């Protein structure tokens, strides 16, 4: 993945999560992956197009998703209902949008698709021909893995 793209995503994730959760946010070591990866249970996907093609996936466990949605709505949610899902979607949207704004300032033009959310057990994600950058973020509610797979349009 193009070096210039890395920081905007890392910074956006860090800033947005810190702002909405008002908690101690820690970033793990970044790494690359190209094989199929398990999805933890709740995955929000935002597609990217423009100078690049690809997608950003926000991956977390169900209990993490519920805890985050609870904090963001200031009420205790019991399960990931429509409100919870909308909240996670919004979080994904906020982070990606902020990253794309930063990239725009650097001169890269990206468009994004509306986020979709996928939940279920035992899922895997595979990207043909693209390697994914994994940005692990550790929160008191659990961990979120931000999985960015984009490639240059050739």
């Amino acid at each position, binding site marked *: 993945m193009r070096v210039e793209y890395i920081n905007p995503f890392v910074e956006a994730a860090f800033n947005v999560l810190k702002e909405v959760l008002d908690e101690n946010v820690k970033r793990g070591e970044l790494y690359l992956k190209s094989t199929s990866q398990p999805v933890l249970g709740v995955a929000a996907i935002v597609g990217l197009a423009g100078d690049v093609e690809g997608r950003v996936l926000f991956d977390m466990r169900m209990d993490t998703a519920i805890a985050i949605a609870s904090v963001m709505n200031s009420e205790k949610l019991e399960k990931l209902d429509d409100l919870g899902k909308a909240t996670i979607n919004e979080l994904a949207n906020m982070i990606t949008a902020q990253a794309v704004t930063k990239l725009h300032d650097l001169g890269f033009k990206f468009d994004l698709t509306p986020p979709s959310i996928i939940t279920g057990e035992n899922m895997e994600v595979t990207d043909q021909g693209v*390697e994914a950058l994994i940005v692990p973020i550790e929160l008191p509610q659990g961990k979120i893995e931000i999985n960015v797979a984009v490639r*240059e349009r050739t």
Partner: protein
Amino acid sequence: MSTVSVTIKEEAEAKKQAELIDYKMVTFSLGGKDYGIDIMKVKEIAKDSEFTYVPNTPAYVRGVYNLRGDIISIIDLRLMFNLYVEKKKEGEPENMIILRLSNNILGVIVDSTDKVVGVSSENIQPPHPLFGDINIKYISGVVEHNNRLYIILDVERIFGGEEELPEEREEKAEVEEVPGYPIPSEEKEELDLNFIADTLATFKGFYVTPVNYDWVKSRFDEWKGYRKTRNEDIQLRTPEEADEFLLSFYSPYTEELLGDDFLDEIKKILPKFESKTLSVWNPGCGKGFESYSMACLLKTLYPESRIKIWANDKDLLNITSAPNLIFQPENVPESLKIFLAEGRNGYQFKSEIKDLILFEFHDILNQNPFPDVDIIIARDVLSFLPLQDQEKLIKELEQKLKPNGILIIGNNERLTEYNWIPVEEAKISAYKRKLEE
């Protein structure tokens, strides 16, 4: 993130273990388990299928064997320890380890011999009473290395000791002929070299393979003499010593811009490019010195062409500093100086150069999703990949390079074993693809 902290922990542990390698063993497998024998007890490794049967001996004595004139007895360790014996076909050779014990020489048959493994003797733990297959008194310890558990056999106990094994009688006759039989220097040397190769991989991630064997061999000879004059052991005991060993491996202008002389050499071997677009792949570009140098060179030579350089590295820190690298003008070769521009923080290359290069955080062993290229520059990259990955990358280079393209590898690297033709006139290590007719 837990995975990250685990890997860091593992790395730290591996580092700690790597610091003191003072016990070397030859490893092999018996009945699907890994075993080791102290390298000082091993004379050599051999393969043969013909043993002369000796009547009236226990079943585990396979017979006697003529080892370059010395008759030694051959014992099947699997039968001796009641392990499963894989039936060999007629004439298929058995794997033997020839042992040099304090009072005799004998051979043992094992399923397969593996390699020489170096460990710290501190990490060897006493055997656990539950190791089923082999009587505990024959085990001198267990040790873990690269996630494999090796059971270290005490061969002196097994074959020496009070227990008069019947086959020893025959041996004694010949043992007297060869007291203190010296290890032939060639074999000793091979073991030394193998062990150095092993430590280079552990300490520096440098893998000895056909790509760099010639250099390693000659460096080994030089190193031997050097260490002898200083009265030091030939083996590499610390990462610093491994660094010292590898010092002369690195190609000229590693971690700096390519000098004018080097650029001239590249200029000489560049083929005639028909197309108006020129693409270059620079895997393992580090901080991007090679990429900048190539960009300037090509811009000078082909000002009209559309030049694109794909530069990638999997070291996040290095690659992220590449796009904004600052240079000191006095360190920049003459021919590149015209492309420098002074910015806020110091001298950088002009954007006409920067825009030619695409720096990517990318692992080349994953898929490389860009079009075929005219030039590949991958100096001292192959040697830092394990053999399997090296071969994978060599194939990948072959697929990605256009038929008339050129590949530049490290000065001490060779691709003669592979499908590549060296560019003879070059003073640098350059190759062309061997095209099928």
